[in-house]
């Protein structure tokens, strides 16, 4: 397959919202736990205890990062599992519970909610968003019912970067909860927010928070669910006693160690990396918006610094993505999870864009290793690609 791609000297990876590479420091921290310290953490012998200690150290790092207690941190196989556990685990003991979420959530939330609706185990409302892709507090407040048990709103949207008003929602729910019998629990999927935004759970006012390691230079296949003490979770994966009896199965020790290391590095560099990535994003935006018939999705002032999504008139997203790939640039069109289907992005449609506009979406997502020169390269190749596709399009 490689042969048919044009020659290229340099690859520019701008798809960090999809996944990031495992950083050298993370890999180094992980490597002893494949061979040297391979013990089963459930075993009391020294082999087991070495592994157990490593997990608990990683748990402390995550707890510290989130401003939580170690007993409130569960390791999972990723954000998807954490979300499934948060939703299904919370509603299991409730009679006809009501869930409020947004129409722009990741599939991990939307499909979990749809499944619960289909089984008749929950009623769900999907909140609309405004033109910038933000949930409105008023809409949320109006949707709350006596039987509402869960509000699940993502922190940063993965397709276009809009930062949802998590702190305000947390404050609203705190106020409402003080006056009612059935507590409304608040879950946020913080997968895209970990690297650049404040994720301390008390500041956010959340009871449940999910995250995924591979978005911040830890490996794929490991994630976290934070659950505030007292949140009535029922485990969804039955078996052994691991993870406070909330997630059975022998722990993925090296990956958990990797996630711990990666989150420590995020904490150390958060402010500077947010500023750095924002500067690159602004440069990219200025350059790409020079192309006629291109607009940015949402309002960049309300977006996370690492994502910029554009709508290109008269060019289709996947075609742009593949031509960019041929030039050695990795980008994405809509959400990678959405692209298997024929419908344009549910996020863009929820924001009020027309399907014909949404088909021309192109997402760039930046990471710590990107450089100004790389952005220059993208700004150089993209206009030619857009022009090529527009020239092939019918003049209607």
């Amino acid at each position, binding site marked *: *397959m490689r042969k*048919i791609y044009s020659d290229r000297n340099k690859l520019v990876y701008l798809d960090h919202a999809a996944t990031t590479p495992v950083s050298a420091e993370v890999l180094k921290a992980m490597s002893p736990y494949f061979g040297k310290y391979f013990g089963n953490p459930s075993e009391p012998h020294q082999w087991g205890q070495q592994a157990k200690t490593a997990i608990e150290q990683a748990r402390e790092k995550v707890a510290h990062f989130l401003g939580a207690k170690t007993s409130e941190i569960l390791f999972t196989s990723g954000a998807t599992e954490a979300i499934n556990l948060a939703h299904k685990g919370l509603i299991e003991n409730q009679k006809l519970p009501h869930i409020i979420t947004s129409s722009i959530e990741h599939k991990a939330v939307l499909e979990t909610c749809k499944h619960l609706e289909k089984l008749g185990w929950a009623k769900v409302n999907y909140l609309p968003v405004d033109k910038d892709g933000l949930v409105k507090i008023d809409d949320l407040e109006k949707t709350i019912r006596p039987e509402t048990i869960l509000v699940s709103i993502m922190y940063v949207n993965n397709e276009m970067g809009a930062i949802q008003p998590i702190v305000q929602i947390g404050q609203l729910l705190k106020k409402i909860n003080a006056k009612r019998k059935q507590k409304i629990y608040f879950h946020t999927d913080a997968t895209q927010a970990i690297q650049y935004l404040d994720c301390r759970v008390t500041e956010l006012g959340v009871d449940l928070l999910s995250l995924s390691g591979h978005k911040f230079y830890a490996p794929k296949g490991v994630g976290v669910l934070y659950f505030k003490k007292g949140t009535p979770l029922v485990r969804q994966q039955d078996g052994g006693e691991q993870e406070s009896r909330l997630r059975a199965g022998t722990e993925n020790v090296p990956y958990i160690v990797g996630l711990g290391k990666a989150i420590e590095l995020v904490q150390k560099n958060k402010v500077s990396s947010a500023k750095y990535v924002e500067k690159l994003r602004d440069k990219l935006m200025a350059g790409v918006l020079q192309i006629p018939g291109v607009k940015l999705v949402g309002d960049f002032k309300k977006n996370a610094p690492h994502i910029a999504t554009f709508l290109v008139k008269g060019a*289709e997203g996947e*075609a742009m993505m*593949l031509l960019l790939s041929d030039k050695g640039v990795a980008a994405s069109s809509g959400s990678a999870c959405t692209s*298997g289907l024929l419908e*344009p992005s549910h996020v863009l449609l929820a924001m009020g864009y027309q399907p*014909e506009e949404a088909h021309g979406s192109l997402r760039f997502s930046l990471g710590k290793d990107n450089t100004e020169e790389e952005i220059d390269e993208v700004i150089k190749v993209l206009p030619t690609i857009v022009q090529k596709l527009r*020239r092939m399009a019918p003049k209607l």
Partner: protein
Amino acid sequence: MKISQFYSKKVLQHFYHPKNVGEIKNPDGVATVGNPVCGDVLQLFIKIGKKGNKEFIKEAKFLTLGCAAALATSSMITTMVKGKPLSEAEKITNQAIAEALGGLPKNKLHCSVLAAEALEKAIANYRQKTKK
């Protein structure tokens, strides 16, 4: 039919280096299928020649807005019909187009349907014109 998970080498070849892109001025047959709401619009132009009594497709060109599969199927159909007697060209099915491309991912099979439909309609457009 072969259904691939990703694009075949042939699809990528036609996508990166499409054949017969453009418009034919005063075409003998033209058809526009699909619509921007669905994400794919394909416009096919044909020019008909005659060898003795037999009509054949002398030239075929396309303009397409769409994904890699839409562009590749457009390019493929023009190469398949060029120089073919009309009676043979109209027998080309969407399966034949997909097969010529070494298969298409399942969710992209509709692109080959679109290309076959464009051909059928362009030929019908020509027939209608010559009837008068």
